[in-house]
């Protein structure tokens, strides 16, 4: 990168500035490249496509199709000089990259097209051929431009018209003639969700809007939320080719960050209170060991994504677990913090199943009800999770397919345990040299906070049990004093003692209530956050995994390159082509994985910030609630003792 930027200061800064193409373009191009390489290697490329739609959602892209069509070309031309050359400088001159790049736009388009037209498969071929030419152009241009100081722009100026023309020609000649136009117009209208296109297109027309916005937001955040380091990187990459594109990012990392924070806040405040969820009426269904508790999940919403404003469904505990499984499978690998549900409790549930009206089982059910409610509220509070079709289905659909994997200690649970074990091992083996101080510090913070919260949880737990003990002892004392009062032969004293017994009875109630508050308001909050911190750590792990994948790909690429060099040296042209293909494939993977890593990093960052805000809000709310409960019981205490005082004074 550094090398490329040295070589290539921007040639037409003014023009580019005026164009002021959003930074998103940059994303687009890179992703495009990924896609391309992905196709070559016959790999699925759903995730990288995401930013596309963001680009297309960007009004600028709609300004002119030409511009936007030209973009990919430009991007691609920029690509070799940026990313790969950074990593594989020595090979830069070989001309491998430009070739790839030349292919990029073509692939990009051909990739996009399948979404709209089934024909695209056919169309992509001729295009490719066509582009076979353009790469040549590109290629021939590229060395030149590299010699010059402003290669990208030149590239753009020189080769991309060719490219574009070619592309047009391809479009003209190919069956999917109108493809580019269609593509863009369609995308600007429907803003097709290319992110995980499979599911969305098939299922959620309604969703797509939401999701598209989301993607857009994500993309913005991605750029601006990046660590200063990353930002600089993107700046470096973007500047030479299109200084304007980096405008948003160029605002400076800090500023950008602040901005996105505001955005986040807006986003949050917007979707607050649009959805109220309550869980009520726990009800035992069935008998014996097959019995289970069903809960009424009521939703009140003004969100247009739901069919009606209020609706109610009945769900059982395993449904909640099932929801979590689904969400976690889909989102946690992207670095999202998926709120974990309360744990299964065999003991508690067995009590409920067996016991009829045991107070402890009543408490258990209430505790579970409350924690399920909090769990669900956390899920819908999450702007991205709320968009998930499974969440909607969970809230809306009358009958939910039975969640299977959640049965206690089932095979799935065992598998999960094994997975966790392997994760732990790989965690130990992966040594990530953290490039980003922010993550390093945050992870440390999270870990120590986890420790502290656990400690606090233990202490508050013992507070709860001590207070319960106090309540029991007070009750026993009250009885004893009542007896003493009945034995007392002084009438006034006897009366006062029995009053004291009554007073202590009331105080016992107070202690008991307070113990309940200690538990529900304080302990449960801590338990929730201990679980949530686990999820936060999980998202950090996902980031590390993605980093590892990227590193692995880089190592492989390096090996491939060495192999190629050997082949070159050994002068074996027959195998050379294959080697080149492989290198191309792996280069694509490297870029793809790097992108992925950056995306995951950005998501984790965003998520952690979101999490912290939510935590602060939650804690504040609960602390006040807790203190108010203490206040109330103290006020009651005053009343009780003040009522007793005259009785004591009446003793004579």
């Amino acid at each position, binding site marked *: 990168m550094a090398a490329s930027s040295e070589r290539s200061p921007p040639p037409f800064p003014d023009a580019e500035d005026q164009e002021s193409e959003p930074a998103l373009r940059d994303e687009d191009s890179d992703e495009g490249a990924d896609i391309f390489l992905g196709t070559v290697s016959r790999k699925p490329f759903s995730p990288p496509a995401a930013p596309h739609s963001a680009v297309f959602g960007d009004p600028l892209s709609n300004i002119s199709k030409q511009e936007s069509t030209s973009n990919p070309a430009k991007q691609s031309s920029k690509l070799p000089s940026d990313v790969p050359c950074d990593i594989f400088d020595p090979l830069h001159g070989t001309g491998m990259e430009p070739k790839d790049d030349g292919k990029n736009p073509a692939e990009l388009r051909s990739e996009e097209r399948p979404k709209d037209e089934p024909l695209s498969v056919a169309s992509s071929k001729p295009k490719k051929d066509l582009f076979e030419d353009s790469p040549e152009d590109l290629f021939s241009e590229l060395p030149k431009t590299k010699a010059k100081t402003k290669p990208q722009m030149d590239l753009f100026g020189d080769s991309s018209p060719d490219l574009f023309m070619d592309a047009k020609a391809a479009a003209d000649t190919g069956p999917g003639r109108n493809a580019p136009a269609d593509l863009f117009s369609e995308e600007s209208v429907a803003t097709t969700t290319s992110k995980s296109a499979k599911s969305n297109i098939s299922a959620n027309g309604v969703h797509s809007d939401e999701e598209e916005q989301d993607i857009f937001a994500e993309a913005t955040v991605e750029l601006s939320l990046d660590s200063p380091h990353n930002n600089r990187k993107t700046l470096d990459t973007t500047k030479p080719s299109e200084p304007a594109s980096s405008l948003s990012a160029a605002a400076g990392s800090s500023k950008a960050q602040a901005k996105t924070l505001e955005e986040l806040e807006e986003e949050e405040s917007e979707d607050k209170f649009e959805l109220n969820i309550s869980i009520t009426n726990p009800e035992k269904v069935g008998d014996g060991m097959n019995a289970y508790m069903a809960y009424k999940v009521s939703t009140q919403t003004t969100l247009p994504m739901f069919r009606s404003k209020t609706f109610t469904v009945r769900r059982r505990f395993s449904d909640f677990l099932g929801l979590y499984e689904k969400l976690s499978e889909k989102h946690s690998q992207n670095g999202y913090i998926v709120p974990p549900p309360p744990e299964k409790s065999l003991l508690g549930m067995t009590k409920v199943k067996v016991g009829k009206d045991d107070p402890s089982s009543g408490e258990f059910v209430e505790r579970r009800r409350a924690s399920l409610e909090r769990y669900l509220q956390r899920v819908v509070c999450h702007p991205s999770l709320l968009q998930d079709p499974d969440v909607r289905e969970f809230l809306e659909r009358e009958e939910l397919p039975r969640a299977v994997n959640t049965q206690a200690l089932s095979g799935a649970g065992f598998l999960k345990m094994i997975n966790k074990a392997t994760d732990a091992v790989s965690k130990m083996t992966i040594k990530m040299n953290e490039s980003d101080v922010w993550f390093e510090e945050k992870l440390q913070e999270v870990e120590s906070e986890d420790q502290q919260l656990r400690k606090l949880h233990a202490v508050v737990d013992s507070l709860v049990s001590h207070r319960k003990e106090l309540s029991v002892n007070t009750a026993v004392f009250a009885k004893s004093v009542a007896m003493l009062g009945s*034995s007392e032969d002084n009438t006034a004293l006897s009366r006062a003692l029995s009053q004291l017994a009554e007073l202590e009875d009331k105080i016992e109630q107070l202690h008991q209530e307070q113990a309940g508050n200690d538990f529900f308001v304080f302990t449960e909050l801590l338990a929730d956050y201990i679980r949530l911190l686990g999820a936060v750590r999980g998202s950090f792990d996902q980031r590390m995994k993605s980093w590892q994948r990227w590193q692995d790909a880089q190592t492989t690429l390096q090996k491939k390159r060495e192999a190629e060099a050997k082949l070159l040296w050994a002068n074996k042209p027959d195998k050379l082509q294959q080697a080149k293909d492989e290198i191309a494939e792996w280069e694509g993977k490297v870029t793809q994985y790097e992108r992925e890593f950056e995306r995951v990093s950005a998501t984790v960052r965003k998520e952690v910030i979101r999490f912290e805000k939510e935590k602060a809000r939650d804690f504040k709310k609960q602390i006040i609630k807790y203190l108010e409960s203490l206040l109330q019981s103290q006020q009651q205490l005053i009343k009780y003792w003040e009522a007793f005082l005259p009785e004591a004074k009446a003793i004579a």
Partner: protein
Amino acid sequence: MPTISQEYKTALRSVSVDLNNDVSLLIDIPDALCERDKVKFTVHTKTTLSVFQKPEFSVPRQHEDFIWLHDTLVETEEYAGLIIPPAPPKPDFESPREKMHKLGEGEATMTKEEYTKMKQELEAEYLAVFKKTVQVHEVFLQRLSSHPVLSKDRNFQIFLEYDQDLSVRRKNAKEMFGGFFKNMVKSADEVLISGVKEVDDFFEQEKTFLLDYSTKIKDSTTKAERMTRAHKNVADDYIHVAAILNSISAEENTALKKHLDKFSDMFEKLRKVEGRVASDQELKLTELLRYYTRDIQAAKDLLYRRARALADYENSNKALDKARLKSKDVAQAEDNQRQCMQKFEKLSESGKKELTSFKGRRVVAFRKNLVEMAELEIKHAKNSVSLLQGCIETLKNC
């Protein structure tokens, strides 16, 4: 080693017995010294009585000296008709010491601050036990001094005046066993003489009342002890909560920091209040019950002595009848019978007085302590309320 200032002690004086404030003989324990298991009390006397050589003097006394004084009083035949004030219980520093030991073991698991606070708390507890000990010893002497008969006791006066160590002989094993045996005999005797027909309704009533009351109050005492201990545990938990919250807030750097700070602060303040509530309950309620458990035992002892005298009297009557029948040793039997009767009547008379005054004393003490406890509870609760209100206010505003 802790010593106690006079003013604190008067503030803490909880077990009030109805002491008539006779200025002719004023006793207090202004100072005490704790050396390992031994507690040395400084007994200070101020008097206008001519029996004493000086108007004011202080002597060092140990717990065992108090026990000796009590035992001699109990054994004095003349005082059989009196309720001998219960001996002060042996100083018990075991529980705070044990806790201190435990705390030392758990030091590693706590933050430094937490440890310091726990230690302070234990030291306070230790001091409280110490003060309580001093207090019960003082009350014992004050009850003696305010008693019209017992205050004239020669042993009591020696106890107050003799400025050397009394070095009363500690009970040896045989005597300890003897005491135990005596108790056995006494209980057996109690059963034996329970068959004796009571001649006086007053005593009959007192007996049933005291027996009943004694079991009830014993029960209440243990229950109250448990309750106050549980309360103390809750207050101690507050310390840990405050300490951990504090260390969490130290690491936090978001807006939450302020809240956690306040929250931790709140717990720290609340734990002091709760601690006071617990210790005041202990002092006003548990200690009262404890004292009267002992006092009632003393009253029961009086009843036993009277019942014994009654049994003796009846036996002497029988013996006299027998003697008259056999016309042998009639004079001696008559003499014996008259003595027994006199003794019994004297016992009954003074016993009646003592028991009546005991009743009055108990009611007054209960009143005083219950009123004080209610007032303290209200005070503490009000304190908590204002603390909590202030804290909630600031939290809401930030």
